[in-house]
Each structure stands twice: as C-alpha cells, then as structure tokens.
C-alpha cells in the first residue's frame, strides 16, 4: 500500500503532468489561455484576482523553500532553526490567507454573477474543487498543526521523501509516519499536478516575462500560401447571365 501511494502514484502523476503538457501544447494552442472573464465581471475580480495570484506566488515559493532546500543547507548558511520556522509558519500563513481570500472571492464571483457562471466550463468547476481541497488541507497543516498545534517537522520526512522521488530512489517509509493531514495534502498535491495540464492553469507557463525585453511593435511576414484570385465580379455576373439566357436543352 505504501508503495502504491508514495511511489507509484507520484510517478504516475508526474508522467501525466509532463505528458499532458506536451500533448496539450502540441494539440491545443488555441485553448491555451487564461480564459479571462474580466469583461463580464470586474468589480470582485479586481480584488480577488490579485489576492489569489500574489498569495499563490507566496505559497509556491514557500513550498519550494520547504521541500527543495534541505535543512542541512539552511543550517550551513547560518539560519537558526527557530528563525526558519517562524518565517515559514508566518509567511505561509499570510500567503495562505491571501490565497484563501482570493479563492473565496473568485469562486463566489462565479456563482454570484450569472454571466460568469455561464462561461464556467466543467473543467473550471473541477479545478475550483481541487484547488479548494488543496488549500483547505494545506492551511490545516500550517495553521492547525504548526501555528496553533505542537508543530511537525516536515523537513526531516516529507521534504526528504519529495526530493527522493526526483532522485529516483523514493523513500516511502518516511511518509508512512507523517500526520494524516500532511499525507492527504501530499497525495492531493500530486493529483493536482496531474490535473494541471488539462485546466486553464496552463497559462502559468505562458507568463509573459519576455515582454520586458521585446521591441514594442512586432512585425511578421505573411505565412502560408497565396490564395488563388477569385473571378472578378463582372465575370461572375456575365457567367450567370449567359446561363440564364441560354435556352433549356
């Protein structure tokens, strides 16, 4: 069971994540978009969207810090364990609260505004449910366990397991002992990655940073074939006339 959950599932999800993106990129450039609905509703979005996105940046950065940077590295750099913990918990809580507030506003917006509701696709709904579940689990782990509770040092277990997945020597034993909420969040995280390429989240990979260096006006040569010139209107008219005039045989 441990093998299936902590070894097979992560690799399966990562394979879907990578393969799904390749498939979508090659197959569906036209659908690769933020799918903006600001045209239809902008009052709630103006608050909710920046909150959600900035919160998400913080959360993603926090996860990268916690999961990818080994405790030995921060210790070697001279960051005391206590300082690290404070930063992680409070930074994570602030980013998480922003994310939650933004997400609540954005989901509410989908239901309050009939116009936006109409443009919401089934995949959007799946995505919102998945996002909400992930955020609830993550916030429970951060706030209930680490901020209010006794705390749990995920850097010695979960982070090591997470990195071991990418070294192709997954250590499922480390996850077996983790608290349930962390286990669920980790499983959910990988499932979420598998969902990613099939949702509007693909717009993340198109973050337009190249815009900062690009010349303003883009020129492009016309591609593709030159269409054959259609007949001149006069020719069409004359052809029709001739047909009409000619006696039925």
């Amino acid at each position, binding site marked *: 069971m441990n093998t299936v959950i902590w070894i097979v599932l992560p690799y399966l999800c990562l394979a879907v994540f990578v393969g799904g993106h390749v498939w979508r990129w090659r197959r569906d450039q036209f659908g690769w978009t933020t799918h903006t609905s*600001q045209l*239809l509703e902008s009052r709630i979005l103006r608050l909710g969207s920046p909150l959600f996105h900035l919160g998400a940046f913080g959360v993603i950065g926090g996860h990268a810090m916690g999961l990818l940077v080994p405790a030995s590295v921060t210790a070697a750099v001279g960051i005391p364990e206590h300082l690290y913990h404070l930063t992680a918990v409070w930074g994570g809580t602030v980013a998480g609260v922003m994310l939650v507030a933004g997400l609540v506003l954005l989901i509410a917006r989908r239901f309050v505004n009939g116009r936006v509701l109409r443009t919401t696709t089934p995949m959007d709904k799946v995505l919102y449910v998945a996002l909400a579940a992930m955020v609830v689990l993550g916030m429970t782990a951060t706030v209930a366990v680490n901020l209010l509770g006794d705390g749990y040092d995920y850097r010695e277990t979960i982070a090591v397991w997470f990195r071991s997945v990418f070294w192709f020597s997954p250590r499922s034993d480390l996850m077996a002992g983790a608290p349930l909420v962390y286990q669920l969040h980790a499983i959910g995280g990988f499932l979420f990655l598998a969902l990613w390429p099939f949702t509007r989240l693909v717009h993340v990979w198109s973050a*337009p940073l190249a815009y900062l260096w*690009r010349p303003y*006006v883009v020129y492009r040569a016309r591609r593709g074939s*030159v269409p054959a010139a259609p007949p001149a209107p006069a020719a069409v008219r004359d052809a029709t006339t001739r047909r009409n005039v000619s006696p039925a045989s």
Partner: protein
Amino acid sequence: MRIRAQVAMVMNLDKCIGCHTCSVTCKQTWTNREGTEYVWFNNVETKPGIGYPKHYEDQDRWHGGWQLDGRGRLTLRSGGRLKRLTRIFANPDLPSIDDYYEPATFDKDILVSAPGGLNDTPVKRPHSALTGEPMAVEWGANWEDGLGGAHERADRDPNITRMPAEAAAKVRFEFEKTFMFHLPRICEHCLNPACVSACPSGAMYKREEDGIVLVDQNRCRGWRMCVSACPYKKVYVNHATGKAEKCTLCFPRIEAGQPTICSETCVGRLRYLGLVLYDEDAVLAAASVRDERDLLDAQRDVFCDPHDPAVRQAARDAGMPEEWVEAAKRSPVWRLISEYRIALPLHPEYRTLPMVWYVPPLSPVLDAAGAAGRDDTDADDVFHTIRDLRIPVEYLAELFTAGDADAAAGVLMKLAAMRSYMRARTLDGTVAQDLLDSIGMTAEQVESMYRLLAIAKYDERYVIPTAYSKDAAALEAQAAAPGGCSLDFEGGPGLPVDLTRGRS
C-alpha cells in the same frame, strides 16, 4: 530607410448615410458567433455622441494609445512594460461588457408555437445572450443612431468636452438647432499600433507585406492588454474562447485583390482602398513629435511618394513585386491623403499613426451657408460660412486634427472650392481660376479629385494588388493546393464554436 507597403482606407464622410450595411455584412462575415455577439469590427456612430463603447475617446479614463513622458519619449499611456505586468491579474483600464452593451436575443419560437384563438398578439421578448435571462434592452452599438438620446448624453461626447468653451457653447441638441453626421469605424491598422505594443505574449503583429494588424489566435493567451491599449477600442475579447479578436481588414479578400466586405457592400460607395508606401524607420520619430498638432504633417511625411523613381526603386529592392509598385502609383488613398490632402486621420493625438483616414463631411456646411442667407455657390460666402457654422469646425478638429481648427477648415475649403469650381465649369463653362488659386490646386487636379470623390468608379476606389510571397516554396504550395482557407482553425470564423468546446 526601410520601405513597406500598407493597405490603407479612406472614407468620404460626406457620402455616409448611416445605413449600417457595412456593419451588418461585416458582422455576418466575422462576428456572428458565440462569444462575439457584442463585437462589431465595423460600427457606424452618429456624431456627436458618446460612441461604442461608451466614451471610448476619453483617454483620461481608459488610458489608450501613446503619450510622451517627461523626457519626450513615447510611452503607452497605460504605463511601461513592468507596470503592465503588475496589472496583469486585473486590468484597471478594461471596459466591461456594459460599456459596450449586453447582447440580446429573442425567443422567436413563441410567435410560431403560440396557440390559436388568442385575444392578444404573442410578443417575443429579449433575452440576454450572456445569461439567458429576460432583459430590458437599454443600450446598443448604434443606440445613438440619428442622435438617439443626444439631448441626454451627447454633451458628454469627449470631443465636445475638449473643445474650446465658446465653440462648445454653440453645440445644441434641440430639434432644428442641432447637427449630426455618421462616422463608420473599423480597426485603424496603425503604423505604431498600441495594441501590438501592449500584447504581453507577442501574439499581435503587423504584417510586413501589407501592414494589416492581426491577432495570432494560437499565441494569444488572453492577457487582454490589447483591448485597453487600443484608444479606438477596436480589439475585443471573445468571452467564449477567452482570446482577443479584431478587424482583419478581410485579409483573405485583400490577398485575392478584393476589397473588404465593408467596402464591397458600402451603399454610398464612400470607401477607398489602396496602398500607401511608408518608411518604417521614420515611424517612431513621427509618432514622437512634441506638438500634437504636428502629428498630421509628421505622419504624411512618413509616407513615400510612389511617383518618385528613387522610392520605386527602393520598393523593388525591398522585395515588392512590380504589381505593387504600380498599384501604389494608382492608389486612391495616396491621392486623397498626400496629393489632394483632403483626408485626415481619426484622432492623430493618440500617436498610433492610424491608417484609416476620413474626408470630413461638408454637407452640413453648405446647408448652413444657405440657412445663413448666403450663396452656397459663392466661394467667399462658403469660406466665411465654414468658420461660422452651427456644426463648429472645432468639433471636426477634435476628431481629425488634434484640435487644429485651421487645418480642418482648410480641408473643408478645398471641398467647397471643388464644388463651386465644378458648378461653374459644368453650368457656365468657365474656369474659376481664383478658386483654384485660393486652394493652391490645378484645374486638372481638382477635376480628377472630383472624379474620384463624386463618380467614384469601382476600379478607381479599390486598387488592391494580389498578395505576394517572398517565399517561393509558399507559392509552389499554392499552386499545388488551391482552395483551403486560412480561417479554418478551431473556433475561428470558419467553424461553429460549439464544435470545439465542451461547455455546460
């Protein structure tokens, strides 16, 4: 010097009767799809009026187009690159659908399926195309048609609020005291397009061969910065696909040497299509001149004279086929803009160097001359009337010359002089040399200008060379595969959108 060609348009507003045929045929061709119900690549506005979308000309509110920064450098009015990216999560300058209008549809079934023997006639009711709910139709793309609602709103026309106060005071919205004319609008296919410059993903581009500005539907990621950056609000969000769409200048037709749908079906025959040669390297400097009122001349200076042998040779060296060089020489657009100098750009102060120009309307002028008890055939009387109008020339100046009333009046005088000259020539058989001198044109020029404006033969209005490709392989591909339409991509105008998406 880097010579490029642009397929440009001129509209003769004197002839526009506001029939909306251009809008309707354009909509049938391009935007009769889910997600683009509210989109009019071509719309016809009544001026004065607040326009479509509402107040789009008020750049203090929408921050469209360009401006000069403190050091005289050209910057997008909505801010530089970094600022734009910080606003990508919520664009503060984006119009909402209510600034355009809520599109409606009608439950026409009720007319067919109503039971017999009713005392009352069944009535079809409007339903929102966005929510499906019953709705009241309270605004539309041509709501102000024929000055509809002008007594309530038209004084908030941004062109009136910007006018000098004493001129604005002359504008009346009472019956028999007011004035109006129609303004058909499409994408300006600018030389210095703000939409292209604001597109974060680089999906928008200006075509090297013919200057047409397009959105690459496969590369658009829906950042919607083009919509707010365009000061003419001629880029739209398709709310079904989440991508930007805009007037394509009917490029499949232009490539085949045919006029755009709006031009082809124009009842008043007021549109002209032709090439303008321009120097791409001169564009930035022209858009950056300090005084807004110099922008008109600066843009004219970017254009190259197709009769100049040096220009023609440079065009050939740039890879332009002979057919294009010849077409540039015969271009009606070049003649109206640069030879006769009677066409003016719409809102040059936006600094985008627009490429759809307008011959301003003279008709209200001659009416006014008659109403003032003056002789509308007498040049002096007409010239005086032009500066003494119920329709203030200052209003036209706000639209076409960045507020320079003398420049706008100069064009009207040319048009008035042409009419007086032709009347004397046709009725009396005399040549009114003083009229020609007053506008600095030769008899030959005025008569050919008259022919182009008044007779306006199809072949003279539209001088469009067929597309060429510098890529020989593409030409061969064409020979191998005739037919095949470049618009048959998923969700494009060639396919119904329902086929391409799973939606609830």
